[in-house]
């Protein structure tokens, strides 16, 4: 038996703890971390899971108490109703019936494809508007010194801090005065204005980090200012621009209150459109869930494609390229 006094490695084994320095402690730690992660994932993913399961149940099963975790009686009625109603509303009934020999009949009358199209139109336009305004503003704020710069930045930050609906009434008045009521332009303007401050903050981070020597190099390479902007700055800013665009796009895609109050009829975007499925006691939740899944597909596909740029854009300054 060696004592600490004659064990030469003793001084390297100070401050031992059971949790960190024994095999058993290691297992306990890993189990605790794993369980916590699993619980958190469950908590976050459960609503999504519930949406998918609900879309695959029959109306009776949805109303059953206690609810079932997995659909006992698998049914695609929800999806059928949504797709058929789109086909009906789009006026393709005759075409689909003659081509696929399907009988198209839906108990609802909402054009989901039309909603998606409206939303894409509004969201892309709002995203581009925020991008153009925000990028130009952030370039100037980052590269030029002027009086009131800090105040301006604080103001932009403050504008992100209160809900847009708080200024609903004046905006409603403004839209009315501009005679833009029930137009997509109104939404594009409002969403663009709501997201531009975020774009300014994000792009300012990018421009602050932008190496001056690259701009010098492009001048020595005989670039005009426009050429420098087009061939050097924009390509280098690509990731940050994409991240900004996605942010603005998603906000416009999800926004309900303005869309609900400013639009009506066939101008509606996805969020108010989905809301029309919810009809008190008669709500067909499987249809609502199926419609929600269908409308999120285009966004999911788009995001999956540009997701890596999004992460790179947000962490742009931190990781050297």
């Amino acid at each position, binding site marked *: 038996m060696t004592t600490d006094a004659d064990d030469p490695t003793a001084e390297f084994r100070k401050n031992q703890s059971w949790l960190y320095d024994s095999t058993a402690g290691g297992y306990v730690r890993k189990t605790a971390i794993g369980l916590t992660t699993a619980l958190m994932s469950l908590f976050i993913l459960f609503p999504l899971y519930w949406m998918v399961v609900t879309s695959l149940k029959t109306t009776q099963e949805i109303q059953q108490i206690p609810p079932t975790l997995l659909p006992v009686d698998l049914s695609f009625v929800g999806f059928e109703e949504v797709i058929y109603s789109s086909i009906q509303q789009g006026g393709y009934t005759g075409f689909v019936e003659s081509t696929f020999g399907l009988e198209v009949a839906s108990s609802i009358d909402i054009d989901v494809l039309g909603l998606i199209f409206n939303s894409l139109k509004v969201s892309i336009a709002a995203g581009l508007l925020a991008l153009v305004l925000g990028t130009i503003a952030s370039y100037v704020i980052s590269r030029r010194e002027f009086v009131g710069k800090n105040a301006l930045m604080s103001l932009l930050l403050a504008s992100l801090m209160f809900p847009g609906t708080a200024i609903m009434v004046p905006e409603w008045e403004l839209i009315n005065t501009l005679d833009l009521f029930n137009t997509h332009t109104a939404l594009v303007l409002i969403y663009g204005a709501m997201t531009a401050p975020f774009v300014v903050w994000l792009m300012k981070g990018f421009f602050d980090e932008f*190496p001056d*020597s*690259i701009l*010098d*190099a*492009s*001048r*020595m*390479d*005989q*670039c*005009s200012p426009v*050429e420098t902007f087009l*061939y*050097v700055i924009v*390509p*280098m800013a*690509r990731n940050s621009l994409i991240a900004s665009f996605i942010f603005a796009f998603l906000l416009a895609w999800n926004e309900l209150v303005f869309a609900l109050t400013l639009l009506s009829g066939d101008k509606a975007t996805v969020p108010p459109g989905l809301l029309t499925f919810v009809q008190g006691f008669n709500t067909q939740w499987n249809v609502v869930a199926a419609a929600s899944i269908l409308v999120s597909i285009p966004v999911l596909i788009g995001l999956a494609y540009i997701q890596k740029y999004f992460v790179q854009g947000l962490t742009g300054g931190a990781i050297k*390229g």
Partner: protein
Amino acid sequence: MTRVTVSGLTKVFDDGGEDIVAVDDVSFEVEDGEFIVLVGPSGCGKTTTLRMVGGLETPTSGNLEFDGTVVNDVKARNRDVAMVFQDFALYPHMDVAHNLGFGLRRENNDFSEAEIEERVKDVAEMLEIEELLGQHPAELSGGQKQRVALGRAIVREPRLFLFDEPLANLDANLRKTMRTEIDALQSQMGITSLYVTHNQEEAMTMADRIAILDAGQLQQIGAPEEVFNNPANTFVAQFIGSPNINLFEGRLEPTEDGFRVTESAAEVEFPASLVPADLDPQSVTLGARPQDLVPVTGPGEADMTITGTVSLIEPLGTDAIVRIDTGSGPVTAMVTGYESLERGDELTLGIAAKDIYLFDTDDSLVKPRHYEMRTGDEVTA
């Protein structure tokens, strides 16, 4: 192929209401095909001078001429000048081939795609980076980036090369290889070049002439041997040469056949032939290069000896930098055969009178190192 004339060039920056003079009335001329190195400590204005020549900064006053034409108001992109930056400044989103060809594709140049590819290929071959043409800057090592940056400058065959500390971000070995290459490349192409560095060794090895700047002012411009042996003032003497020159305050008195300088711990006699001027008694600064100081066994073995205790030995292989503490302060010498030395040893260093520099009270040189003796002078060395 351009002669550059810089006359009275001044740049004043406005830093929050406070004027900062970065470059103060600098004038010099760069001959066609010459390699000039601007050297000086950080903040001496060397980079600002270079940037003004390139057109990246506008001079506050003074003139800049290319072949006798004032170019103060000519845009950077119309000056036909190429620059290599310290951080390489490669375009991260383009591969090497496009980095090299980027300048050639601009409107000022009228090249076809085939010509551009041809030139890019030639330059890549010259710099041995052909296999990197398809890669992006992020995939390159520091030395490779440096070669690409160099290639981007030479591919256009500009009238003027500007180098802004191009080797500062490289490791020591690579720096030595690259400086030889840049030097060779420049003499081969014969393009007038201005090269900025804070590294005096780089300046000495590469330059046709060295311009030494301090606090925005040009201290001296001359060939490497000239600034080493004939420094205009103590600043230049200290800046050029490594390790730093030893300086002592002393008193100069004329004697019968020359001059005697007395210093607190030593004295030295100069034959009149070694001092190029008739001097009145005055305070002077003596300069002794560490390379010129050699260990001696006692006084009388050299024109000037100084004794002290060894306080530091930095072995460099065959030589060592040895510092001794003397009555006149610390003295540094390059000593060969230092193995027997130990800290605390008593050591006497000697130097020949011809190797000593003398500066007068106005800090200008009165006796250079190795002053060329007049014919008929008696040589006692």
